[in-house]
Every structure is written in structure tokens, then in C-alpha cells.
């Protein structure tokens, strides 16, 4: 893991996360090539692009989860609220508490349903049992899981359906009260009902949390997002407000992608 070359991104008051000149390499392969983008505070940005274009890698660079991957080199600059994410002396744990993440597939902890959410609450500094309980209930209600699980909070989350598990992970991610929420195709394994539930939640988070949200579903992007970031082969093709992107794409490749033609 190393970081060199730091062009300063323009400090924009409305931007919560600013990425500039971000390159990610593994061995000699360049997965991301000099990406620059901004994620507006309190807005939902959909990251789209064909498979393998680097969407997940971009997301994982934002909360430094790529640090786990041996041999991965990250260059460029990412600012969270003006502070360098990869800066020297940056507390990675603190960073990750500010940036929640939901993965492509649900990954509940092998703990009770209650504990899955309570762990997040405790990470956020709640310790008294009643406080934690109240917070767990509040979060489970917020993701719409309370009615389904309130009578089995002590049992295993693996007995829940995939959609319910993903909602549980959502509650867990929200428990730390993040400033930014990263969603990596959160609904790709879910039924329409759970998908609608997650989309509703994304909508309800608007204004409060900055959401960066990877999806292959263009309708979903159009429904949920304020902005669209279109990646192709590790490069940014276009970043634009959602209406502009779908109605007046600035780039021919964007148009082709929207129309389902080869890009």
C-alpha cells in the first residue's frame, strides 16, 4: 500500500467525498486509471459501468478496505470532508466508522440478530443495555425488519432470507451513524420487495447521509440517484445529474451504454 503524487482536489463546499487522480494497481495491472469525481453531500450518486470496470475497487478505496489486499497500490488523493483519507496518521478505524458499507452479498456476523446490530451501536459508543436495546429496535424498525424479527432477536441471522439478511446488514451499517454509505450492488441478490425496501431506505437517507451506490440496474439508478458516475475500463467517462445523464448524455459511450449497445 503506498501513496504518491497528490494533486489537490478543488475544495467544493457541497462535496463530501472528493476523489482526484485515483489510480489503483495490482501487480502491473491498472484497475483504476486516474479517476476524479466528487460525491455531493447528502446526495445519492449511482456508480454504473460494465462488469470489471472497477466500481467495487473504487468503493473499497474510499473506506480503505483495499488496504487488506496484498500487493494493491493506491495513488492519488481522496478527501473526506476535506481531510485526506490516505493521509499520514489517518485513523483507519475512525475513517471506517464514518463510512458505512453494504456488500454485494449479505454478510451478517455469526452472532445473534440483536448482536449484529448492537455491535455497531457499541462501536458507536453506546454501552448501557437499555440504550443499546432501544437503538437496536429503532434501527430494525427503520429498515423494516422489526416486525419480522422482534420475537427472535436472540437467534441466528442465517435463518433469515437473503433479503432480510441484507436489511439486517443495512441496520448494522447505520448503527454507527455514518456520514457516507457505500452500497455495492446491494440489491443484486434480492427479490423485488426487499429491493423496493432498500431503495426506499436510500431515499430516506437523502440529505442526511452521502450515498455512493453501485448498480447494474439503470432503472434503479434513474429511480434512486441524484447523480450518475459512469466508469469504463477504470476511467471516468461522465459524471452528471441523473436527468442529464439519461436524457442528454454528454458522451457517445454513455449513450451507447444506456441504450444497451456495446461500448
Amino acid at each position, binding site marked *: 500500500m503506498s501513496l504518491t503524487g497528490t494533486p489537490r482536489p478543488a475544495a467544493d463546499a457541497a462535496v463530501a467525498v472528493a476523489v482526484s487522480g485515483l489510480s489503483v494497481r495490482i501487480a502491473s495491472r491498472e484497475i483504476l486509471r486516474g479517476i476524479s469525481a466528487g460525491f455531493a453531500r447528502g446526495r445519492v450518486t449511482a456508480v454504473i459501468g460494465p462488469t470489471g470496470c472497477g466500481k467495487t475497487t473504487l468503493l473499497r478505496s474510499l*473506506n480503505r*478496505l483495499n488496504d*487488506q489486499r*496484498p500487493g494493491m497500490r493506491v495513488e492519488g488523493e481522496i478527501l473526506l470532508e476535506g481531510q485526506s483519507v490516505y493521509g499520514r496518521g489517518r485513523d483507519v*478505524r*475512525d*475513517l*471506517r*466508522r464514518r463510512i*458505512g*458499507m453494504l*456488500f454485494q*452479498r*449479505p*454478510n*451478517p*456476523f*455469526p*452472532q*445473534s440478530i440483536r448482536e449484529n446490530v448492537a*455491535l*455497531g451501536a457499541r*462501536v458507536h459508543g453506546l454501552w448501557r443495555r437499555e440504550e443499546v436495546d432501544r437503538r437496536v429496535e429503532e434501527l430494525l424498525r427503520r429498515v423494516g425488519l422489526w416486525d419480522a424479527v422482534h420475537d427472535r432477536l*436472540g*437467534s*441466528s*441471522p*442465517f*435463518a*433469515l*432470507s*437473503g433479503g432480510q*439478511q441484507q436489511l439486517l*446488514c443495512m441496520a*448494522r*451499517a447505520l448503527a*454507527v451513524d455514518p456520514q457516507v454509505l457505500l452500497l455495492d450492488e446491494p440489491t443484486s441478490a434480492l427479490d423485488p420487495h426487499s429491493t423496493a425496501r432498500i431503495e426506499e431506505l436510500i431515499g430516506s437517507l437523502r440529505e442526511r447521509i452521502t450515498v455512493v451506490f453501485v448498480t447494474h440496474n439503470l432503472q434503479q439508478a434513474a429511480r434512486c440517484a441524484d447523480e450518475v458516475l459512469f466508469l469504463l475500463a477504470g476511467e471516468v467517462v461522465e459524471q452528471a445529474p441523473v436527468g442529464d445523464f439519461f436524457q442528454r448524455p454528454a458522451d457517445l459511450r454513455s449513450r451507447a451504454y444506456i441504450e444497451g449497445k456495446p461500448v
Partner: protein
Amino acid sequence: MSFFPAAQGTGRRAGPLPIGRPVPLRDADLTRRDRLARWGLLLAAAIPTAMLLLIAALMVAQSVPAFRYAGWGFFTGRVFSFGNLYVTKLQVQNGVPAPHGATYGAFTFIFGTLVSSVIALLVALPLAVGAVLALTERVPTRLQSTVSIFFELLAGIPSVVYGFWGILVLGPLLAAHLYPVLGRLGALVPFFRGSVGYGEGLLTASLILTLMIVPIIATTTRELVRGVPILAKEGALALGMTRYETARVVTLPYVRRGIWAAALLGWARALGETMAVLLVSGNLLNGLPANIFSPFSTMAATIVAMLDSALTDATGMAVHALAALGVVLLVITVATNLLGRLIIRRVAGGAVLPVGRGI
């Protein structure tokens, strides 16, 4: 209660089959080759079973006179003596003749076997699991396989070498430096009170056993830990948890049941270990160890130590008595094994989980 997700099935047949149970085969579904293979496999499975039963039966047959002679005293008596083998005077007890003065009380050895192996297990389990977590979380991936080769080498060292090293090096070292410190615990725990000895005894044997079973537990645990889905661990890291918290919240719960099984393997090894224990035990025949540092003996060690003189007993009773020790050891080993399996099943909580969810 366990939150351990069920193992991934092969998923070849659709439909709600009971998980973890083989697909039932109907005879009509089988070809002639299948049937031949089935008989072959049955035979292959029957041979080890038959061998175990045969060994057990022969041991039991050998031991019966000793059990009849000693009665319940075999399990409760603390004196184990072949009697006077040079005088032809016999002593009849419960209708069974034995050399004059023969007493077969095995309580001391049963105690020694159980206590030394349990101490070894209690020390080895946290050590092995801790070592594995340190290895998988702290050591760079490139070095991990090199380090684990040493674990496997450690597991392959002949036990007589462990025993020899224990009596020459480790025992004296511990008696000089560690035991005096532990001896101060005597103020709280009676079993630590008294002389710390010279390094031959219960604790030294237990620690040698610890060294022998740590690699067994660690190797199994390492495989289990490597099998924990990365997605689950990253979920914890993404929440801002430390590696330590991740291990506690995700890794250990995932491997808990497997660790129980690994611990049982280690325990079984410690129960039956003979040579290393014999060398460092101090070989106390009659009476319980005065404290955790003093000499003692186990069933396995006693069988080896006394077989030579037992063969000189013209009545054959001495050999019967050692065979009886062997039977008790066999029963204890099988019983702990079964008990362990029961615990594992209990821990599993009978909760059959849907295949492939959330992993």
C-alpha cells in the same frame, strides 16, 4: 446455540432434501457396478470396525481375572503392586489366585491420566488458537506457510525425543525458574502448595503433553480459520473493528465447533501418550501426587514401565492387571470421544440452517 451456518451442499438435487444427510439410494436406482461398489465399500468399512471390536474383545478377555480379583477396588485402590513374585505362595481373593501381596488399585493412574491430559488441554487450547490467530492475522501471507511447516514438523517429532528433552532440559529449567513462581500460588490453591521438586512430575509431563498437542490443535484450527469467508471478515473491518475484534466477533464463532473437534483430537492424543510421559513423570506408583509438581504416573506409562516384570509372574495375574489398565484407558478414550461428539452436536443446537445463505 450456534450461529454457525451449515456447510455448503453440492446442490446437485433440487428440492428440500434434509441437509447433511446422504441422498437415500433405492436399490432399483443402482446398476450392477453400483451394487458391486457398494459391497466393496461395505467391506472396507467393516474391516476397521471388526479390528476395533477384536482388539477390545481380546483386551477384555485378558483383563477379566484382574477385575475379578480386585473388584471395585481396581478403580478406587491407590496401591498397585504385583506382590512377591519370588515366593510361590499364592493369595486367593474372590476365587482368583494371585502372588502373595498382589494389589491392583489403579486409581492413581486413572487420576494421573485424566489430570495430566486435562491440564495439557487447558494450556494448549488457548495457546494453539492464539497462535493461529496471530499467524493468520499478523504474519504476512508469504511467511504463513513457512511458519506452519514448523507446526507440522513439531507434530511429527517422536514422543521419546520430547520426553528426553523434557527430562534433560525443560524439566530442570522449569523447576529452577517457573515453578518457584507458580509455587507462590500455593497460598491460594492447595494443589500448588509444597515442594516444587526437580522438574519430574505432573506439571512437567502436562507441559510436555501441551507441546505435543498444540501442533495438532493448531494445524486443524488453521485450516478452519482459513476457511472463514472473507466477506464476513471484511464486514467487520468495514465497521471499523480491529483485527482482534474481528477475530472475536466473526472468525471464532465461525470455527468454534471445529475447534471443539480439534481439542478432542488433542485430548485423545494426550490421554494415550506413553513414552514422553513415562520419561518425565517421575513414575510414582503408589499414591497420588502431593502437589502439581510432584511425581505421578499414568495408565499408559505404567503399562510400559511394568510390562517387563509382569511377564515374570508365573500366575499371569500381573499381565491381566496391565491388560485391565489398558481396557480402562480404552474405555476412557472412547468415552471422551463420544462425549465430545455429543457436546459438538449439542453446541450445534440441532439447528439445521439453509444452505449457502449469507456466506
